[in-house]
């Protein structure tokens, strides 16, 4: 009954004025197209609205550059400098370890490997990309953390170093995949010219192909930065989660884990919870900055 009623209306609109009918459908698709824009706006607005109150109450300077975080103490302190520095050091460390490994692997996969090895390596990299972060966390917790404790002879292996190693492994697939795509796109003529001039294959790859693909490789690194700074669960399981100033062998807390670890027990509306939203806002600003950088490199690549 209902269905027939609606069908009749549609038929009527269609017959009466097919332009209106097309316009309605156009409108529906326009709304669907604008959903992503709406989501971005919604996320931005919500984060700003919920992040500002605590910053106002604590004071921007005290919040960003305060060296102490003690949200549950009698006299609570809300300084997030330890988290900011930990996130920056942790990401930098992961990049320093992960990028060279990923870069050389990418050159090998793109230029030197034969078809069989290439397809095996590609599925290996895809698997690495698909492993859930909690699995990385679990393995890190039971293999890496005890290993660090034994090797460096410290009381607890859950440390910045453990987080850096886990993050370095987690960003590897991003770096390899994007670099391989960039290296594959280098025109064959460039390489042929170099080979014809007497350069060996390896010299050609590193002195011609790599510079030609440098925008794409830069994009890969920036993508790695984005993934490392945003990772929460794996880091939470291996970094120990104490709000110390960053030091390689000490338990530390990242921006992401600061949010995740206290969210469950902070009461809604309290300054503690609002401060967590402010931390998320700071993290969001970092990510937006990274996105803008990424877009810069990708655009430059396209224009060439």
């Amino acid at each position, binding site marked *: 009954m209902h269905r027939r009623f609606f069908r009749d209306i549609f038929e009527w609109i269609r017959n009466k004025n097919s332009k209106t009918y*097309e316009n309605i*459908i*156009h409108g529906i*698709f*326009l709304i*669907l197209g604008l959903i*992503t824009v709406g*989501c*971005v706006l*919604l996320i931005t607005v*919500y*984060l700003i609205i*919920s992040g500002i109150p605590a910053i106002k109450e604590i004071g921007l300077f005290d919040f960003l550059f305060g060296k102490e975080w003690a949200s549950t103490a009698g006299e609570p302190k809300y300084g997030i400098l330890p988290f900011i520095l930990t996130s920056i050091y942790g990401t930098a460390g992961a990049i320093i370890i992960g990028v*060279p*490994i*990923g870069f050389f692997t990418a*050159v*090998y*996969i793109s230029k030197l490997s034969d078809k069989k090895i290439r397809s*095996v*390596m590609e599925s*290996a*990299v*895809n*698997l*690495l990309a*698909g*492993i*859930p*972060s*909690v*699995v990385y*966390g*679990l*393995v890190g*917790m039971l293999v890496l953390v005890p290993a660090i404790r034994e090797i460096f002879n410290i009381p607890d292996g859950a440390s910045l170093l453990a987080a850096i190693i886990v993050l370095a492994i987690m960003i*590897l697939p991003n770096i390899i995949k994007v670099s391989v795509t960039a290296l594959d796109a280098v025109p064959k003529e460039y390489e042929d010219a170099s080979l014809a001039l007497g350069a*060996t294959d390896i*010299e050609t790859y*590193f002195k011609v192909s790599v510079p030609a693909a440098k925008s794409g490789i830069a994009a890969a690194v920036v993508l790695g930065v*984005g993934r490392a700074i*945003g*990772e*929460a*669960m794996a880091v*939470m*399981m291996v970094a120990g989660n104490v709000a110390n100033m960053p030091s390689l062998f000490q338990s530390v807390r990242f921006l*992401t884990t600061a949010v*995740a670890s206290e*969210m*469950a027990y902070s009461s809604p509306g309290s300054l503690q919870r609002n401060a967590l939203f402010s931390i*998320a806002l700071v*993290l*969001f600003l970092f*990510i*937006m900055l*990274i*996105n803008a950088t*990424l*877009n810069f490199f990708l655009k430059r690549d396209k224009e060439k």
Partner: protein
Amino acid sequence: MNNKRKIYIGLMRVAMMLCTALTASLVLFLLGYVLIKGTPNITWELLSTKPSYLTERIGILPDILNTVYVVLATLVIVLPLGVGAAIYLTEYAKNKKLVGMIEYAAETLSGIPSIIYGLVGMLLFSNNFGTSLLAGSLTLVIMNLPTVMRTTQESLKTVPQSYREGAFGLGAGQWRVIRTVVLPGCVDGVVTGSILSVGRILGESAALLFTAGFAHALNGIFEGLTSPGATLTVALYVYAKEEGEFGVAFAIAAILMILTLIINLSATLVGKYYVKRRSV
């Protein structure tokens, strides 16, 4: 060839070999370690029961079901939205600025870390209708929207322009062209997008922790969607970090690893199948 060049070539070759070997062995180690530690703990009892404090038994059936519910609910919502957005971009949009804006928004969405999705999902959904699998699914919808949109867009670009022109020439309206020519052509994009989304949903934990909670109740799908529940990844986190039940955690990790393998394999196969069919 002078010595400097020889050393450079040798060094680079060794560096490449070492790094590739390191990456490969890392993957092998992770896969082997998790499977060896996990598979012995996968028992029928674990898979088919719910946790009980009385008998101190741990079962992950509720978590498996919750994962299935979340995957289904998310896909049901995200597919129409993502496909619609892609169709708008490739078939309707004339304004370059608007297209640029939508694509920029999609890129921004795919760069936002899941913990931020979790927070926003909590504010948007959980605070309004309670911590529940549905709130978690809606959060995941926003996360996976760019993926579905991009894969559909890619496949729409491969539908030959002449098909559309032919249909228009026969007097079809825009909507009829989309329904009869464009939509059938983007099936492969939708399938690939779904596979990628399922993989991402299976691996997601930070976005679900505060939106879907971590209960282990055994529910039917409608009851399940409106009540809090842990998916497999969240359950792994809780068992490993909060309860120290590493055996169960490794069992779940092994299951997730096998699912990841299956998903990657099917994505490759689907890709190959459609490339083959196109070239015929």
